[in-house]
């Protein structure tokens, strides 16, 4: 399949006239060398954030959810906003790995490893919120359906929160397996190049005895396909189920059938934005411009503008339905609590609109799609916007629901709520820094696949063929 002819019109996926050895050298350089100062600075900042997060959670667990500023009307605020936000971010990895693998999108190889790692770390971060938003987190195991001594007491299979438990844990497991199985050949490469015993031993353990035999390759390829097949529906189902947390409720602003596709599109949108943010840094810091090319970045920007527009259509549909349904309650939520800039949370709605719908339209211009600075800036903006979206959905629906008597006072987070959020950033980046240092951030083996078919060398070789006339070509190749 990889011998498929690559058009001259499509730019090469790997630039810089690399050969196989160079690929290995380039990508494994950070693992085999000493970390830079920059790496240390970043890592320590991440660890500091993580520790602050740990302390914030400690306070919340010791003293209670009252350490946050949630109230009788707003039962979920930053906690679930952040949960959905992180889960959304965790979408791109699997989408890139699985769906793009199935669609044979060669360009995924440059970014899939890091994107998958990001997925896993993001899902880890996301998981903290539903766990620690519980009033009695030490009883969290109640959500697991296990045979127990409490008589016929079972979990409630009607509850979307329970579906979440299954959806997120399945997604996490499959993503982890997918990611890890891809890492095995690369670990073996690191092992084989190791200069110290410890390194050899540890990477040897991680490589599961990979020898690179044809049988191994055959199996891992099959495994990839199977896992890709499994993950593909998961990409769609996870955020669909997360959206059910809201869609199956009775609260105006939540009770909406549009949510599943809208959430999935939003998730892909934010996930790609996060991949952009990280990749632009990684390629710069580790000098991997030849593997993560502007072509990659442009491709992802196309996904961003597409999904951003889907999300935009969803927002407008919601507004339309708010009016068309002629429901006072829906109408109030969409037209007063949200679309009215002068209502207490109007700013968050328009912040969302500006970040998610208006600003990505800039990517209709090729120049902008290929501009690193714009891309980086936009990737941040999109994730801010997507955070606003979840905040808008959760808080502006809850704070003024059915009974005007229970409408809430203004909710803004406490330092410990913010701390928890920052802590997940700490967790994410701590993991990511460790990943960048100890794991090949680009799939070495997979790059080598595409090197032959889309590398610069290959293109040069093929230029001759390209220039050939048809009968010459037939003559040459028809043995």
């Amino acid at each position, binding site marked *: 399949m990889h011998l498929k002819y690559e058009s001259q019109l499509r730019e090469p996926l790997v630039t810089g006239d690399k050969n196989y050895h160079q690929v290995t050298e380039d990508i494994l350089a950070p693992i085999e060398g000493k970390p830079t100062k920059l790496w240390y600075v970043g890592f320590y900042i991440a660890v500091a954030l993580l520790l602050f997060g740990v302390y914030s959670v400690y306070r919340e667990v*010791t*003293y*209670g*959810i*009252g*350490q946050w*500023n*949630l*109230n*009788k*009307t707003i*039962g*979920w605020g930053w906690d679930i906003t952040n949960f959905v936000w992180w889960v959304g971010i965790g979408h791109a990895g699997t989408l890139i790995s699985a769906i793009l693998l199935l669609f044979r999108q060669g360009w995924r190889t440059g970014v899939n490893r890091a994107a998958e790692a990001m997925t896993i770390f993001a899902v880890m971060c996301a998981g903290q919120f*539903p766990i620690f*938003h*519980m*009033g*009695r*987190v*030490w*009883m969290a195991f*109640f*959500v697991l359906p296990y045979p127990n001594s409490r008589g016929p*007491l*079972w*979990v*409630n299979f*009607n*509850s*979307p*929160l*329970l579906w979440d*438990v299954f959806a997120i844990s399945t997604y996490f497991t499959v993503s982890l397996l997918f990611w890890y199985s891809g890492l095995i050949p690369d670990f073996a490469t690191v092992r084989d190049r190791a200069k110290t015993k410890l390194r050899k031993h540890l990477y040897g353990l991680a490589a599961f005895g990979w020898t690179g035999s044809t049988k191994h390759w055959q199996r891992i390829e099959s495994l990839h396909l199977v896992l890709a097949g499994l993950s593909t529906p998961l990409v769609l189902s996870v955020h669909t189920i997360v959206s059910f*947390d809201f869609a*199956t*409720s*009775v*609260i105006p602003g939540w009770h909406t059938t549009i949510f599943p596709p809208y959430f999935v599109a939003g998730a892909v949108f934010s996930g790609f934005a996060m991949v952009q943010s990280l990749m632009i840094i990684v390629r710069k810091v580790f000098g991997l411009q030849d593997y993560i090319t502007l072509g990659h970045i442009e491709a992802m920007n196309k996904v961003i503008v597409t999904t951003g527009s889907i999300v935009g259509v969803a927002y407008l549909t919601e507004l339309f339905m708010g009016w068309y349904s002629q429901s*006072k*309650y829906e*109408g*109030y939520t969409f*037209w*007063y609590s949200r679309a*009215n800039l*002068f*209502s*207490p949370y109007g700013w968050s709605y328009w912040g969302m609109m500006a970040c998610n719908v208006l600003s990505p339209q800039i990517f209709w211009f090729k120049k902008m799609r290929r501009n690193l600075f714009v891309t980086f800036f936009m990737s941040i903006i999109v994730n801010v916007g997507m955070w606003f979206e979840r905040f808008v959905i959760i808080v502006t629906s*809850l704070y*003024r*629901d*059915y*009974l*005007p*008597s*229970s*409408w*809430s*006072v*203004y909710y803004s987070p406490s330092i410990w709520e913010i701390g928890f959020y920052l802590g997940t950033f700490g967790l994410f980046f701590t993991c990511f820094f460790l990943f960048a240092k100890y794991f090949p951030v680009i799939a070495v083996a997979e790059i080598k696949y595409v090197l032959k078919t889309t590398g610069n060398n290959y293109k040069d070789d093929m230029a001759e063929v390209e220039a050939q006339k048809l009968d010459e070509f037939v003559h040459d190749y028809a043995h």
Partner: protein
Amino acid sequence: MSKKHWQSFGELNNSDAYKQSVKDEFREDLPMEAADNGFLEGKTPRRDFLKYLGFSTAAAAVAASCEMPVKKAIPFANKPEDIVPGIANYYATTYVQDGDAVSVIAKVRDGRPIKIEGNDLSPITNGGTSARVQASVLDLYDTSRLRFPLIDNKEVKLEDIDKAVAAGLATAGNIVVLTSTVVSPSSKEVIAQFLAKYSGSKHVTFDAVSYSGILQANEASYGKRTIPSYRFDKAKTIVSIGADFLGTWLSPVEFAKQYAVGKRIDEKKPEMSKHFHFETVASLTGSNADERILHRPSETGSVVAALLAAVNGQAVSGLDDKLKKGIEKVAKALVATKGESLVVAGSNDVNVQILVNAINEALQANGTTIDWSATYNTRQGIDADMVKLVADMKAGTVGGLIIYGANPAYAWFNSKEFVEALKKVKVTVSFNTKADETTQLCKYVIPDHNYLESWGDAEIKTGYYSFVQPTIYPLFKTRQWQDSLLKWSGATTDYLAFLKTYWSGKVGGETGWDKVLQDGVINPAAAVITTASFNAAAVAGASAAISSYKKSDKIELVLYQKVAIGEGQGTANPWLQELPDPVSKATWDNYLVISPALAKTLLKIDLSVGGEADAYEVQPPKHVVEITAANGAKVSLPTLIIPGTHPSTVGIAVGYGRTEKLGKGVLADEGGKGMGANAFPFASLVNGTVAYSVADVTLKDTGDLYKVAITQTHNIYDTPQGNRTEVMKELTLAEFKHNPNEILEERDKELKPYGGIANFEKEGTIYPTFDRPGIKWGMSVDLNTCNGCGACVVACNAENNIPVVGKIQVAKAHEMHWLRIDRYYTGDPENPNVVFQPLMCQHCDNAPCENVCPVAATNHSSEGLNQMTYNRCIGTRYCANNCPYKVRRFNWLDYTGADSFGDNQQPLVDEGGLNEVVLDMNDDLTRMVLNPDVTVRARGVIEKCSFCAQRLQASKLTAKKDSRPLEDRDLKVACQQACPTNAIVFGNANSEKSEITTVRKANEKRLFLSLEQLHVLPNVTYMAKVRNIEEEGEHHGAEHKGEEKKEDAKVEHAGH
């Protein structure tokens, strides 16, 4: 011979050593010897192993047990006959506080009173209670109660203080016994005995909020210095001029009950009493009025004079047009129902009250709606007496002052002068349960019993006696004040013996005494309404005096009482402090009440602008305004904008700004400051009586902000996207008469897409429906008789161990009340109509909270209860989010001390995240008030109204033990029992005979379910509020008319 394999040279040579080793069991020596050598000589020899083991186990056990809290559950060695663990005893007694007296039943569990219920045998209150009565049980367990006698703030023995006081009094000279109103006839006798012993002594009565004006006016008009019974139940037209008779005026529980009689609607013959309310600052009663007319405080005299003139058919003059029209209308209504009209006024001005008497006389109220057969003993203070007392004290002619119940150092308008004068009194004695402002200044303090520890009697109205008996042995070294007085007057008997002697003759010996204690009350044989002869002589003088009153054109200030706090009786009670004020829905503080119009000019907040209204509502910090009066009184308070307040009038509640000795926990604010400010210094003496208003105050916006903990921030159910009439339904009497089916039609229209009312349950869902056989609990709330007083809320607190969370937490909207009273405004924002809607868990049959809980911690019982399993709850709060009624409450912090994590309250208190009151409420003493039948919830779980599940279980058991089906008499839920107006009905809705079924059938046309269209199928039904106004309702009629027109237009269109 085969080759021999040898393993060692020993074997090869077959040495002796080898031979020996083959013989031995082990070829090589086991490494035992070396160890054996030192074993017994070692530091821990083998034989001592068990010793060490025993010691370390014991030491570990001892050490571990040091950490364990010791909890004692000691069984009775000799069990008292009448105490059965787990079974409650009920004692009839009387809540007596500063002249307020209500006959009650105390529920005593395992020797401690835990709940107060009304006494059904009292014809005055008929089982009704108020928030303050309900909360009074908590005062018994107040941690800041005085625990022993004091001389100069040092603990002494009772004998010592008796000696010292006796010595002091003997040489003191003139002695004055200063009390709040004493309603107890036997205590009056005790005081009389005391006064007889000391020549020159006298008794002065001081009421914090004075009724001197009405007492003196009645003396002038009727020759009786007393207050007659009012019969609001007999009145078809009720006019109140600033008398908050449903909340704080005179006898609110009784009046609420009477008032409800006129407000309860018979659907077949819809008639209602009509209530006009003149007021200056929004009150609970004004909020219930059919029509509220606003005026300035300085106009009160003119309003009354004008009303008298109008009633007498004369022209009204001297008032602005709006007021004039209002008065003419009121007079017309009053005259139309002559003989069934009643006018009351809250003013403490003798002249005003004389004119009110004249109006009532003109309306033939005397003998119809005003009953002189029984007069109130609950207010007896005359301001002139108090003025004279202070003057005497200043002059040094008072040698001894014995104070019971009165607190002039706080509540007298010129408390500074009183405090100065008190210094000149040689012997000062205070009987009090707490070290209030006056008690702190007294040399001798003998702590008094709480009423639940006391003996006594009360004559609430003439002939209506109510008895006080102890329900618990005194908790501290306290003594009933009557005992002290008896002792000092040389009597040899104690008060109990005195009381028995006093009564046994009257009630027929020991048996009769036992009977009255059991009943708690003695009622007069038959109440016949009688008149008193009216003397019109004073009217002319009063009119003349009033016509000379100056009308102010400045901003005026009115002092008012809050329903829960009163004159200050409720200040130190956390339940009352946390009860949202029915009018403002604010807790824990007092504040300056201003009108929306004044807010526009003073604070630049225009509530008619959406954004500004939002900003005002959602932000708890409110503008602090400095209020200054000409007499030098000055306070800074946050402002709340309360519609229904006159644009030129501001109000401050009294009862705040108290000494921290009443309970540091209750009174300390976030910054450790006292809560609120004392407003009594704004009062002044006018024409011999205390006036609770100031004609000219200066307001200055200080620019500071102060957080006020308000539980309801948004007050109207109309939105730009439509009027949420599914939430609340109200209409006017005229509309109801015109079309009795209006509510039914409206409901049917709302449910039309889902099959209309008839088929809604089935067609409103895609799921199958179920039969609900057996018991089905249901509740019904009549919004016409509910006046929003809040008694049910406090009753629910007491019954269900609902934690107090403190101001900081309420400001974060973390209050825990299972039952709240929503208050909505409709109509004119300056003077709106108000409707109250008690809201508790609706126990939906198709509950949205149930299906979202991941662990099935909330589920449905076969009896229709939405149940909460605290043990199973993990606290995701999804149920609370998905509850359309927002009645679910989450334990945000460890409010109860029941958490599995220790020591997580004090650190929060220290860093200012939690009020000290939470610690107070978790004190071992305070926790004695907990209801042992109800779980104390731990942190992190959701809780909500359970329909008093414990009472339901008990009632089913009662019925079962009697082998009969459950009946209504088996149970009352706490809110239902507390309600003075019987607005709440509860029972088995599947039973044909039950009251709930009857009530629902009888009120079918007013019945609605809040948010019915959601198909959550609530089990709480409401009966729409009907207002007795002729004009079509502001929203309802208008909307309806509009729709009709639209439909007409459509029909016409179709016709063409």
